[in-house]
């Protein structure tokens, strides 16, 4: 009995509609292809404020928040940045709700020295309207910009070295947080990779600390990023987080959301195409047509400017690790679709958004990060595709960058990638020098630009996928140059891509397709996908 979210294509199946950037593309997948759909959204909490109050009053492995408060103490609240969730959630953002309750509690206990830091690490600084969206008008008006501000990882006077872990990882964090009597972290957990020790130990750190785990060696040892128990990255961050929590008094508040990314008029995008009603089918056709005719800026506006109606599904508070266990469980409840049997060919559309291009364009380096990094890693257990298998993605791979947000990416893609695609070589030969480029650092500090180390991280993010996959074929690229830079092959149509993939696949290749977005994850087991007797009924590909 397969999970209802795992659909096998038969001869009567309708074409699947997958994202190719901010366009929708109809593809005919061969009979026998298994398509993984997102689970329906978990029902949201009815009274979020009550859940927040309950969580902070009944924390896991910690005394309640009120018991930690003393008049006159110095408190720093750190919050996740705009990369979570995707797209930003409809107002009120759950962080606003948590902050409202926590700030009131602090005021009631005579705690006046409160600063709120947006834990951007080396991400771009959030713009005032983005901060306002997250924290709400009232908090924004009262705290911005003196007591509510972006973390600055390149301010030498604003960082403090804490110590080194037993594995030699250097922990240097935001000085205000280090010198506070209490640090409250308000997290919004979108994927299982978020939260836990990553919140403070990464969100408030700088380049010095990131080097410990944001490197090709660590990324190669992650199986997968979305499964903290099998992620070398998570293990390293955990060590650094434990050291952090030895020095800092951290109270963690984590929240989970469901995967209601699209509001009612677009909800059908998450549905099995065979189950669409007549109206939904017409709407899908109309949307696909409209998107194909609109200019890119208008498509970006449609998808990114409209906040998502995510519902809050859980609020957990207390000691970091104890809290995170509950968060991960809740996150998996929403996302995990059990799938048995790895595929020879994995097919996925690459949607228009990633954590790093909110309010900007998904540039080629981010497409790579999404494909080799995030989409490849949407599994728990074994990889979705066999070692040496092929991944087929749909994306135009347009050679376009946001000059403000992604300035260092441009030089990385057009100057460094032509030199080498080898992550180890990029790391050894170029990273340190590039990451210390004063112009980019100034853009990071005073503008809204990602730190110059970030494009390297985006490349390393694809390292696990690159090491595992034999081939990557991109369908619908509007140029040959970018796919070639990425080390990818190109095909004009899905049929052509499947024919190409078949050359290096077994005679009757197993094909698995991901129907994302909204967000989904597979719980993969390695045993043969086809039950006995089913194999012969599957027609060969093409």
């Amino acid at each position, binding site marked *: 009995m397969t999970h209802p979210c795992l659909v096998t294509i038969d001869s009567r199946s309708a074409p699947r509609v997958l994202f190719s950037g901010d366009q929708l593309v109809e593809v005919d997948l061969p009979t026998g292809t298994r398509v993984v759909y997102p689970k329906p959204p978990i029902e949201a909490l009815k009274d979020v404020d009550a859940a927040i109050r309950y969580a902070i009053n009944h924390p896991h492995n910690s005394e309640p928040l009120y018991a930690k408060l003393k008049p006159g103490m110095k408190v720093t609240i750190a919050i996740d940045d705009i990369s979570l969730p995707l797209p930003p959630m409809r107002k009120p953002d759950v962080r606003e709700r948590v902050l409202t309750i926590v700030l009131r509690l602090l005021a009631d206990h005579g705690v006046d020295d409160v600063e709120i830091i947006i834990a951007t690490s080396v991400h771009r600084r959030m713009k005032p309207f983005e901060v306002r969206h997250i924290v709400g008008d009232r908090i924004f008006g009262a705290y911005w910009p003196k007591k509510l501000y972006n973390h600055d990882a*390149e301010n*030498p006077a604003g960082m403090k070295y804490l110590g080194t872990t037993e594995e030699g990882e250097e922990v240097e964090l935001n000085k205000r947080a280090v010198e506070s009597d209490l640090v409250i972290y308000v997290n919004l957990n979108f994927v299982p990779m978020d939260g836990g020790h990553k919140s403070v130990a990464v969100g408030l750190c700088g380049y010095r600390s990131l080097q410990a785990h944001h490197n090709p060696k660590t990324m190669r040892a992650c199986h997968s990023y979305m499964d903290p128990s099998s992620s070398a990255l998570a293990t390293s961050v955990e060590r650094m987080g434990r050291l952090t929590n030895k020095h800092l008094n951290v109270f963690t508040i984590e929240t989970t959301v469901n995967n209601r990314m699209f509001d009612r008029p677009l909800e059908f995008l998450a549905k099995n195409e065979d189950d669409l009603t007549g109206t939904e089918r017409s709407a899908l056709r109309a949307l696909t047509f409209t998107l194909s005719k609109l200019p890119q800026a208008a498509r970006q506006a449609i998808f990114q400017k409209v906040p998502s109606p995510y519902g809050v599904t859980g609020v957990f508070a207390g000691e970091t690790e104890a809290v995170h266990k509950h968060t991960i469980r809740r996150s998996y409840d929403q996302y995990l679709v059990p799938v048995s049997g790895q595929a020879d060919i994995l097919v996925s559309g690459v949607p228009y958004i990633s954590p790093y291009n909110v309010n900007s364009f998904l540039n080629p380096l981010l497409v790579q990060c999404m494909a080799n990094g995030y989409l490849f890693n949407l599994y728990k257990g074994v990889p979705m595709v066999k070692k040496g298998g092929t991944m087929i993605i749909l994306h135009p791979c347009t050679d376009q*960058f946001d*000059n*403000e947000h992604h*300035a*260092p990416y*441009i*030089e990385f893609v*057009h100057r460094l990638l032509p030199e080498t695609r080898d992550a180890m070589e990029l790391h050894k030969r170029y990273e340190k020098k590039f990451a*210390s*480029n*004063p*112009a*980019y*650092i*100034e*853009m990071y*500090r*005073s*503008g809204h*630009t990602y730190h110059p180390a970030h494009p390297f991280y985006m490349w390393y993010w694809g390292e696990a996928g690159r090491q595992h996959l034999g081939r990557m074929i991109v369908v619908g690229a509007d140029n040959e140059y970018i796919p070639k830079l990425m080390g990818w092959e190109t095909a004009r149509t899905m049929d052509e891509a499947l024919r190409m993939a078949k050359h290096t696949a077994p005679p009757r290749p197993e094909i698995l397709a991901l129907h994302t977005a909204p967000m989904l994850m597979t719980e993969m087991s390695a045993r043969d996908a086809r039950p006995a007797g089913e194999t012969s009924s599957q027609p060969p590909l093409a």
Partner: protein
Amino acid sequence: MAASYFDVDGTLVTTNLVHPTFFYLLNQPTPLHSVAKLGRALFKAPWMALAETRDRRLFNELLFTSYEGLSEDRLLSLAEEAFETVMKPKLYPGAKDLVQVSRDKGHDVILVSGALDFLMQLLADHLGATGVIANRLEIKDRFATGKLLRPVVAGPEKARLVREHARGHGHDLDECFAYSDSYSDVPMLSIVGHPAAVNPDRRLSLLANAYHWPIIHLAA
């Protein structure tokens, strides 16, 4: 070692060459001298405005004729006051940080400006820059002649001076940085491996976008 070459007016400070010139003209030995000097400068203003649109070097030469007859002693003794009252308050927030980050990365930091060398030296000392390429007034018998010594630091000449400086100090231009706000400095920006536009004017902004040069907004 790499070097960072910074244009000054509009890049690190909001002032331009005219502001310190006015300061000097207003601070003549007597008010009558000041009025006479200002009158002469105003008479030349239309020509200067025209020169600014055509040739930055010509503009510089016309502007600095206003210094004719000023004693060397007066120029130097007023320099500190001119710097403190005219330039220092007009430094962009972040200018010092940008220079400091370059110094932290081990760069030689050179201010390249059409302004006068003694004023630029004071700014360099304040910012922690290591050198100055700036205009020098011709002094004859301890008085300024109103002429500039060659080479005049402006436009394409800046590029040649930067190249010469880099060669003389063993800097690889591909590794060097240059920062400017003005389209007139495109030659200087073009010869280094890492050009950046700082608070760029419209034409430079368009060019920087087209060539994907970093754009820094220090005033933000």
